[in-house]
């Protein structure tokens, strides 16, 4: 247990360092974008005085380090500044968009967990059959090889052309009611989910196969234990670490905003917020959304690292899996 505790503390420390690093990268990367912010917001027709006034209004005339300090200290308190374009606090817009992104993420994730994991376990267990193995590999490979923008565009066209119970053209006005939200997001979630599902099935299958070659499974077979017993007690838990890691990556990716799917379907989530923000050089928006994505990734992975050490005590003992 002491190893787990030490591991946990180490992970938390690393998390803090990584968070700091990402915030620096984000902040300074945004300021490296050519063209500054005022060209878009003020338009090319603006006068020099207007530019100055805008810079002052958003504190962009201060030294960069001071700006960074203000931003980081604000962000810690949940203040991400004001959108240069809408002049509304970014956090206010995020509060509206996060539920949408989270719902979409959960829907896609549940496809990964509820279908991808069992599928991976099944195909992994049956991988001794040669043709079945190849088939499983090809199908899962296909799932991760079809880019979202292809699948999304096709889905958009097909669904809008045939009378269906899904509507794809009016996601801009999504409201926060869970039932309507879920219903509206079925199609984009399916597009996202297919990739997540295939990736999860693939990883699970690999993980299961890797466990199956381990001697302790052979030992269990030699003890005359039933396949069900072996899978339940000796395979699933052992195979879960890489699957957990992948699910963490997927979750973080989904929470950071499934940028392309959100853009294709015009979903008012965090990802599309980032894309429009970037297009306009809306500093506060870009900083907040990218930071959010990075934080989601870092926090989820730290949590999962700690979880992994509970599932498989060797992780903490080895001291550095990643």
């Amino acid at each position: 247990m002491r190893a787990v505790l030490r591991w946990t503390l180490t992970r938390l420390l690393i998390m803090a360092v990584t968070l700091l690093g990402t915030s620096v990268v984000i902040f300074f990367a945004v300021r490296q974008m050519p063209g500054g912010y005022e060209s878009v917001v003020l338009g090319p027709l603006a006068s020099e005085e207007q530019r100055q006034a805008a810079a002052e209004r958003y504190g962009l005339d201060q030294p960069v380090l001071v700006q960074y300090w203000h931003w980081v200290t604000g962000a810690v308190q949940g203040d991400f500044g004001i959108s240069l374009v809408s002049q509304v606090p970014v956090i206010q817009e995020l509060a509206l968009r996060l539920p949408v992104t989270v719902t979409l993420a959960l829907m896609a994730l549940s496809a990964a967990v509820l279908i991808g994991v069992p599928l991976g376990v099944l195909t992994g267990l049956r991988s001794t059959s040669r043709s079945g193995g190849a088939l499983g590999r090809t199908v899962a490979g296909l799932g991760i090889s079809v880019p979202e923008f292809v699948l999304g565009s096709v889905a958009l066209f097909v669904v809008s052309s045939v009378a269906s119970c899904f509507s794809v053209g009016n996601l801009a006005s999504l409201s926060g009611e869970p039932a309507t939200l879920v219903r509206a997001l079925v199609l984009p979630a399916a597009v996202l989910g297919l990739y997540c599902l295939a990736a999860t099935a693939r990883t699970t299958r690999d993980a299961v196969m890797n466990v199956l070659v381990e001697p302790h499974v052979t030992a269990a077979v030699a003890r005359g234990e039933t396949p069900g017993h072996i899978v339940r007690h000796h395979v699933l838990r052992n195979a879960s670490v890489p699957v957990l890691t992948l699910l963490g990556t997927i979750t973080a990716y989904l929470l950071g905003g499934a940028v392309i799917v959100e853009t294709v379907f015009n979903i008012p989530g965090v990802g599309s917020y980032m894309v429009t923000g970037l297009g306009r050089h809306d500093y506060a928006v870009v900083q907040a959304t990218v930071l959010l994505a990075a934080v989601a990734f870092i926090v989820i992975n730290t949590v999962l690292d700690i979880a992994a050490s509970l599932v498989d005590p060797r992780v903490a003992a080895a001291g550095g899996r990643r």
Partner: protein
Amino acid sequence: MNVRQSCTAAAGILALTLTGCGGGGAEPAAQAEVEPGYLAVADDTATAEGPVTVQVDYDSQEDGGLDPQLATTARSWSLFGLVYETLVTVDAEFGFQPGLATSWEQPDETTYIFTIDTSAQFSNGRALTVDDVAGTLERLKDGVGVWAGQIGPVDSVETLDDTRVQVNLSEPYTPFLAALANSPAGILPMEEIESGQVDIATEMLGTGPFVMESHRQDQNWVFSRHDGYRHAGDVLITELRVDIVGEDATRQAALREGSTALANFSNVDALSLLANSGATMYSQQQSDFYYILINGLREDSPLNDQDLRFALNAAIDRQALSNSALAGESAPTGVTPSNLPGACDPADLPSAGVGAEGAAGLIEASGYDGEPLDLLVYNSEPVLGQMAQVIQQQLEAAGVTVNIEQLDTAAYYERTHSTVPGNFDMALGWYAGYGDPAMVTRWWNPDIAGFSAAFAGSHEDLNGLIDQAAAESEPAAREQVFTELCHTVDEYSEMVPLVHRPGIVGLNPDLLTMDLAANEGYGDFLRYLPTARPVSAG
């Protein structure tokens, strides 16, 4: 079966045949005029009231927020125009009709007297006063907005009595009414603004047909009907929702499945892509036009040579450009938008007669050393990339190597407008053409339009013609000035008009019926939305 429906069917069959025999989208699948000046007219038999959803491609995004006087993009004008009214309005023939002014007179060349409609009231219930009108024009004239440059040489504004406002110009300015007809000149509730009751940058308070209920940046607008609107009886839309949908394909899907009644498209091929979808597609001829900037101010640039600039200008075949990049839904134009009354004929321009071979000869004669030239476009409007590729081919044929650079909007402006002199060889962009030929021409004078100083020189002869065009009011004389102006711009070849920017609009006839003008000056396809009629309520 009414006329429009059979037209839809005909267009559908036409499109089907074309696709079937491989003709592609070369032929327009759009509607022709159903009445002089109109692509569509509202069906008077539809009397139901109800909510309507409209989708547009981008949102207003100015630093000035919702202040109409600081609006610079066509989308902002359209949206603000739903709430604010102007003194006069422009009709389908670019003539002027009463707006908040019931009538006006022009006792002399520099004086306008407007009689305001006293039945108008703001959506907070307060009646419109002459002080609102005078205050608005003063505010506009003294403001930093770009429209201050379009409203012309306004010297003073005074109220004559409770119904009349007099505007004194310091010199004659023919496009004055056209400038008043666009929403940056919308009449504001000056009393509330001055008392601080209303922050016009974050709230809207107008006399127009709709009241803004909510706005979420880049997401949607919700408007309700303004019950105190003086023509409230004509407004059948009870709630108007304007969704901002960035992707063309998504708007197409929405129109196809009926989740929006009306949408605009930046891709001209939306005409053929939606031909059999049940939506009726329209191609509006807009006075907006694309231009190419040829930067003659950068040090040591071969483009400092006017002959080379002109040769490049001449090497661009505008008709071919329209055919390839804009599916033939466009037409060449000079600096005076060719669909506006009195505009010059683009076929008469000096560059138009040179031809491909002639241009190649001119380029050779200019001593151009073969150094590749860059051509900037911004990537938020894909058609610019398409046009750039066509131009690249045309210039290639004339012996000039062109490298296309796609930038995001900010980087584009940085290099074309903010840096002086501009850090580029050539760039593509577009201007709104407005409602009078003398308006957009003002951008060719860098002394008026500071932003063009980065790539265009200030030429006395050209500036003189621009002023003359603005001052001249006699139609025949105007036309002559315009022609001379067009030719001069063509000769300098610094900011070269190319072709019109088509406006593609799709309407779902099962949801909405409305008027749509064949020509449009302010990119406002929502112009007739207040009198549009929902087809089936709910």
